[in-house]
């Protein structure tokens, strides 16, 4: 804990915050020097977002003090935070889709003529000034729904700057961005620092901390661990501090021993919402005992392919077979009855019923198994036993989460419930769609290890991910999906990221 002084833009000392009997933060300290980029690193559920929500006035701490520029303040709500020069860009953007960029930026802080009429001309001029100053390239007249996610993030940053923020909090800003957009964001952050602003960035991506930050504060399970200068610290050291034990950043596995074909997709066509062919003549086989990864840029038909495989949308042509049974154009249940289990991409929407308890979520598929529930009723004793087993096996935290509603858990632990549930079905084919999205390194390691364990048990594993590193490291074979079909298939190690990136963009490598 540093001494209180006006060299620091933000100092939070001894912050404790509980929700009922659960302590999200216990005596946490944060000292952010003026004019620096400071990262807050921690696993999912470590309390990073809670700490920032306290600073932004969304939560009130049970105890602890907050100092801005050496002066103690009490931040009761976000309005007070904004008045104190604090701005926050949330993970989920809060924009009005049908408004223009300028309208969104001035919303709630409109400049007016004579106190009544909106002065959009002046507003636009102010916005353009900010755009030019920090290289936040956006068109002020575009509708928010028409611009990319990266642009929307800039609108959020502009919103904060427009309200005169000196300290900007970014909550997992890179989770939704492409590699190029991440580079641009880091440039923007550097430009802001040059102008004397201070930035606090919540993240669990070690690479980005190294690329952007000056200092890094590590939080683990609600406790303050350390604050370190980023220069001279390796990624491994940061990772170890974050999870509390050494982490393997490289996936270790033995060579695959593929056997019979489990999933066989032949000549598949699927239409998207607009009635256009999103999947065109798609062919892929996945064998028992191997992991096949589908690499590709988002929007090349991966979503439609997975919806068709799970029978959520019809296939217009072609066949999907599991162990020789055609399953296309049936019900989701039909595929599951033939040995398919899916870890969905969107765990909140498709994976869990957030208002159900963890017990109920754990048996969301199992409940209809006549061996599990032979009668009319749900066997509650079995349900509890089954869930407790999953909690132990997958280290789901808190261990007492069974009767708690799933929405209260952190993302990583929610994902563990889904993975545990799906694997408990003893699938022949396990499909994982973006299984590590939004998870921290510790949870990612668990997910990858689980996929490989399933492979070694003889399960056919299909992994769909937009993170190239993940596909490259975990898969035994990599299928590149481009414009609705398989552009090329490689064995692991055959090509590097750069070459595969070329194929993902529609190019080809000699001889393929």
């Amino acid at each position, binding site marked *: 804990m540093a001494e209180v002084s006006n060299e620091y833009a933000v100092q939070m000392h001894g912050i*404790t915050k*509980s929700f009922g*009997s659960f*302590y999200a933060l*216990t005596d946490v300290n944060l000292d952010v020097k003026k004019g620096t980029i400071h990262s807050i690193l921690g696993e999912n559920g470590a309390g990073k977002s809670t700490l920032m929500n306290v600073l932004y006035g969304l939560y*009130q*701490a*049970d*105890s602890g003090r907050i100092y801005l520029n050496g002066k103690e303040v009490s931040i009761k*709500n976000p309005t007070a935070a904004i008045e104190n020069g604090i701005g926050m860009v949330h993970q989920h953007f809060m924009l009005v889709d049908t408004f223009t960029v300028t309208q969104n930026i001035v919303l709630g802080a409109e400049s007016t003529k004579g106190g009544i009429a909106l002065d959009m001309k002046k507003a636009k001029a102010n916005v353009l000034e900010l755009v030019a100053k920090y290289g936040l390239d956006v068109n002020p007249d575009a509708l928010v729904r028409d611009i990319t996610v990266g642009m929307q993030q800039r609108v959020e940053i502009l919103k904060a700057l427009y309200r005169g923020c000196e300290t900007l909090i970014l909550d997992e800003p890179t989770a939704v961005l492409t590699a190029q957009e991440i580079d641009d964001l880091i440039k923007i952050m550097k430009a802001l620092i040059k102008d004397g602003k201070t930035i606090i960035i919540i993240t669990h991506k070690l690479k980005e901390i190294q690329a952007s930050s000056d200092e890094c504060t590590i939080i683990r399970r609600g406790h303050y661990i350390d604050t370190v200068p980023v220069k001279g610290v390796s990624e491994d050291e940061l990772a170890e501090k974050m999870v509390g034990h050494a982490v393997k950043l490289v996936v270790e596995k033995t060579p695959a021993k593929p056997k019979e074909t489990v999933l066989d997709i032949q000549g598949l066509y699927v239409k998207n919402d607009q009635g256009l062919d999103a999947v065109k003549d798609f062919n892929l086989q996945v064998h028992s005992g191997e992991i096949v990864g589908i690499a590709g840029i988002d929007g090349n038909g991966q979503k439609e392919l997975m919806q068709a495989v*799970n029978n*959520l949308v019809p296939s217009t042509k072609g066949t999907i077979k599991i162990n020789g049974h055609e399953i296309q154009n049936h*019900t*989701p*249940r039909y595929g*599951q009855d033939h040995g398919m289990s*899916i870890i*969905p991409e969107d765990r909140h*929407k*498709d*994976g*869990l*019923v*957030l*208002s*159900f308890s963890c017990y*109920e979520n754990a048996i*969301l*598929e199992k*409940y*209809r198994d006549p061996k599990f*529930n032979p009668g*009319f*009723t*749900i066997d*509650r004793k079995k349900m509890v036993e089954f869930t407790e087993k999953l909690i132990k096996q997958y280290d789901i935290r808190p261990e007492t989460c069974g009767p708690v509603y799933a929405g209260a858990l952190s993302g990583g632990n929610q994902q563990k419930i889904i993975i545990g549930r799906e694997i408990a079905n003893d699938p022949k084919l396990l499909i994982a769609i973006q299984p590590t999205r939004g998870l921290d390194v510790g949870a990612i390691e668990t997910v990858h290890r689980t996929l490989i364990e399933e492979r070694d048990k003889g399960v056919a594993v299909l992994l769909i991910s937009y993170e190239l590193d993940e596909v490259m490291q975990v898969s035994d074979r990599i299928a590149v999906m481009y414009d609705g079909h398989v552009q090329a298939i490689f064995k692991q190690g055959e090509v590097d990221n750069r070459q595969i990136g070329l194929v993902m963009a529609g190019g080809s490598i000699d001889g393929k």
Partner: protein
Amino acid sequence: MESKVRKALRNPFALTIIAIILGFIIAMFILAVAGFPPFKSVGILIKGMLGTPKDFTAVIIKSTPIIFTGLGVAFAMKTGLFNIGGEGQYMVGCIAAVAIGSWLDFPAPLQIIFTVLAAVLASALYAGLVGLLKAKKGIHEVISSIMLNWIALYLNNWFTNTNFYHKPNTMGSYPVRESAYTMILPQWKRSEAGLAVLRNNKFLLQVLGRNDVNVGFIVAIAASVLVTWILTRTRKGFELRAVGSNIHAARYTGIDVEKNMIQSMMISGALCGLGAAFYITGQQPHLLNTLSSSENIGFNGLSVAFIAQNSPIGCIFAGLLFGGLLYGGATLQSQLGAPTEIINIIIGVIVFLVALSILIPRFLDTHTKKEKPQEVTAKEKEKKKGAGNV
């Protein structure tokens, strides 16, 4: 002390009670403004509801149909459907009960079974149609049920005036046969022996002699227990709740969402149909009348479900409150000349306050005073010790 109040304010049951009491206080203001003595009026209202065994029995009888429609609405709500069509389903149930109960002629137990089954089945199918339209064509249940409410009203009027069912020189149909009646001891209480007993027992005289006491209320209690059990304990209830809470996850994990929607609507309709069946077989005049507008039994069910916050057991109490206000309001009207609108305003205020009370726990979350963590943990330890001793 502070924490006790806060705890109470987080308890939905306590909150509802507070809302109801507040509703009465505001009602007193309204009565005063309208020129009626507030304390006396509320006294008359409450006395009208609970004053004598006869009054309270009448409240139960009056409440029974709206407990059923409330249960129907609450059930659909728990499974993610807004069944605003209870009105139409109830009416169709009444029509079916009269159609079968006045036409067939069987001995008592059979006649009752056929009449009740006819009402339940008709209402279930009528509601199932709404579910079917939503499941297959994506038509919102609110739109289709409002339309079906009107269709049911005119169906009622057409049916009442068909040659076969219309009773000449009246506005109504023939009543169901006496063998379909579900009152408790209807013959005995008019027989010599019965009258002799009743004359000697004032309580029984008031409860039985002066009212159409019927088995509907007992069935309503059984139904709410059954509905609770279905929702919380059974596989079907689990599916229905999953569909209601997150339709996407339900579909993704292989639950037949469409089938569940239709089933949920049918069960909801069947509950409204039960209300209709016991109204027709258990209360005067046991027949259908030509109606110029809806009788609001289904719509009152919406308010009942709302006050009960969709708890099936809560529907019994909310229904009794609602029935009580309607019945007591009539006393207020006859004794003080207060218009029925006043009663409707009181009911409206209560429903409105219950709606507001849902916001209170959220308000508390954002305005919680800072407490030192040590104190909290110490208190919790004490509590745990206490719990251990018990």
